[in-house]
């Protein structure tokens, strides 16, 4: 073993030399990153123009979406709000789903997609890197009916320029097997401090952003840490969250990012408790799994999603008409009910099959959403306004998450 390690290092050296030569070969290439400074107020954004008027439909639109947002009947023939749009608009909709915001950012960078439903932890990264361009809200007639509380927010606009159309919002919930977890949990403690009760059966979301869930739990259980915003953690606060997650790992069966895998794990009982989305609970229940999803008393992390347009898109007219269709009252209502979230369009509340949907999901309840911490990108300038310390940025969170997963 010792010799092989030695020769491994030796080979690394050789490889390094080769790579240096390779680098010298393409030395003419210039750094391709635009500004990308991390200061929230003075974030440098590439100078891109929004579309000024719609042209003729290009015939197709490539959509990158969270699972459950764009359904064309291929998962469930009864769930389809795309086919009619394809006929009426002349735009064929090609759907690609993703499991984490990081995956969305990566896929968006390929330039193969025209529009994306991005959460708050992806939007600013896409804007700063010049992957998405501002949107002309006057070309989206249904924008007028969107809740004012969702418009021109820090995650969907920069310096007063809109970069997307709000889609809807909701909270990450705690799902559990009603037959295996008793009594019914009402606190995130069930997956942290008391996770031992379900040892080897706990699940967690496989993304660095899940650190915020631990931070949120620490806000109530360890007030002495002084966490005000789960996305603004200084070194000590992050370390506390990481320790909590490392302790949790002993009780984890699997981490999930593929929602169908989570449904299966809950169905067969290899997982009994963990974080989820409402749509996952709905799918699991429809497949006869005895599960329930609750919003724990500590509050929750959540999302407020935005439809954005790729700067490299060749199908912008179709992208705009598609987004307008998605946020139109009827469709927005269908999505909100299928995914289990609050719609963005005010008029959607009158179109839901369950007349109480908007009430149940608190569509107009700003007090409720003040308890939901939307996914956001952590940056070194503290998002909670502290100026005496430096906060940990997403790169640090990524390293921390890798460390947790590998501990």
């Amino acid at each position, binding site marked *: 073993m010792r010799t092989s390690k030695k020769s491994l290092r030796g080979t690394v050296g050789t490889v*390094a030399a080769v790579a240096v030569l390779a680098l010298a070969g393409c030395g003419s290439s210039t*750094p391709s*990153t635009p500004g990308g400074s991390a200061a929230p107020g003075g974030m440098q954004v590439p100078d891109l123009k929004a579309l000024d008027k719609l042209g003729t439909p290009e015939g197709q639109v490539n959509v990158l979406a969270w699972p459950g947002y764009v359904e064309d009947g291929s998962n469930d023939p009864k769930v389809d709000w795309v086919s009619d749009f394809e006929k009426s608009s002349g735009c064929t909709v090609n759907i690609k789903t993703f499991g984490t915001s990081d995956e969305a950012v990566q896929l968006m960078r390929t330039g193969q997609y025209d529009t994306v439903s991005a959460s708050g932890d992806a939007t600013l*990264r896409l804007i700063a890197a010049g992957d998405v361009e501002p949107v002309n809200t006057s070309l989206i007639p249904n924008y007028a009916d969107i809740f004012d509380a969702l418009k021109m927010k820090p995650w969907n606009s920069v310096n007063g320029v809109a970069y997307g159309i709000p889609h809807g919002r909701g909270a990450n919930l705690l799902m559990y097997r009603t037959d295996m977890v008793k009594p019914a949990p009402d606190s995130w403690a069930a997956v942290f401090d008391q996770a031992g009760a379900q040892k080897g059966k706990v699940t967690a979301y496989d993304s660095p952003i899940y650190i915020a869930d631990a931070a949120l739990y620490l806000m109530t259980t360890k007030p002495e840490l002084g966490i005000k915003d789960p996305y603004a953690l200084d070194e000590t606060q992050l370390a506390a969250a990481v320790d909590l997650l490392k302790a949790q790992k002993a009780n984890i069966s699997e981490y999930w990012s593929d929602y169908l895998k989570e449904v299966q794990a809950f169905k067969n009982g*290899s997982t009994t408790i963990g974080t989820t989305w409402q749509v996952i609970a709905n799918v699991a229940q429809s497949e006869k799994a005895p599960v329930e999803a609750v919003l724990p008393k500590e509050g929750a992390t959540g999302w407020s999603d935005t439809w954005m347009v790729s700067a490299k898109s060749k199908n912008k007219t179709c992208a705009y008409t598609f987004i307008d269709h998605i946020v139109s009252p009827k469709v927005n209502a269908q999505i909100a009910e299928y995914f289990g979230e609050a719609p963005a369009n005010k008029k959607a509340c009158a179109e839901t099959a369950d007349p109480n949907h908007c009430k149940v999901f608190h569509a107009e309840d700003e007090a409720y959403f003040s308890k939901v911490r939307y996914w956001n990108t952590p940056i070194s300038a503290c998002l909670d306004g502290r100026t005496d310390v430096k906060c940990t940025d997403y*790169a640090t969170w990524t390293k921390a998450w890798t460390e947790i997963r*590998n501990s």
Partner: protein
Amino acid sequence: MRPRRGLAILLGPPMLWLVVVYLGALAVIFATAFWTTDPFTNLVVRTFTLENFRELLTPTYLGIIGRTLLIAVLVTVLCMVVAIPFAFFMARVAPRRLRGLLLAAVLVPLWASYLVKAYAWRTMLQPDGVIDSTFGATPGFGLAAVVLTLTYLWLPYMVLPVYAAFERLPESHLEASADLGGRPWTTFRRVVLPALLPAVAAGSVFTFSLSLGDYIAVQIVGGKLQVLGTAVLQNITLDLPFAAALGTASVVIMVLYLLAVRRTGALDNL
């Protein structure tokens, strides 16, 4: 002159493919491993740094590399343990008619989709699955499950070369050994094993390299297990240069393994 041009036309496209697409891609991976990323946008920034390789040598990642190696070695050893007696039976004991059937039995699983087989193991290993209800216990999702699944997936790659080696082994060698007073065990050790070694080494190239790079089966039956492949996958969206450095590690391991195998003479038989 003409035959030369013909040869150039014949060899040109495959060579171009090999150099540009195959080796070129590898070179780009190596080069990327020396870059870094922007902390906010995660875009690749082309400034030279050795940080990625330095991080590779921290306990966390040495642990992952060690774990991946352990899985690859266990899978290879298990494949040998199952394949050698089975191939012996197939080539030497079974009647000729049965031989074809057995060979088909080994080959048929190769026609089924990799994913179907991996998910089948997930279903078998889950609580209340076939394994649980038959044996009263299941290893659950984790290292043992990954080793089991990968052993199942790669077994044919070990059986086939070993079977071929047994078949090629002349009966006269065994008889000569017996005539010269060799007991069965001595015959196996001094005659059969040396003839078998190159075939086993060739088979192990497949089982070892396929296990080393696998990340899909690990995701399906590995639970929270982290190996080189899943670490690459985890970093590829957020830190491409580091993912490239991790990829380099598996390439280096494989090159070392191939060099070791070459010494057995197995590569001459491929």
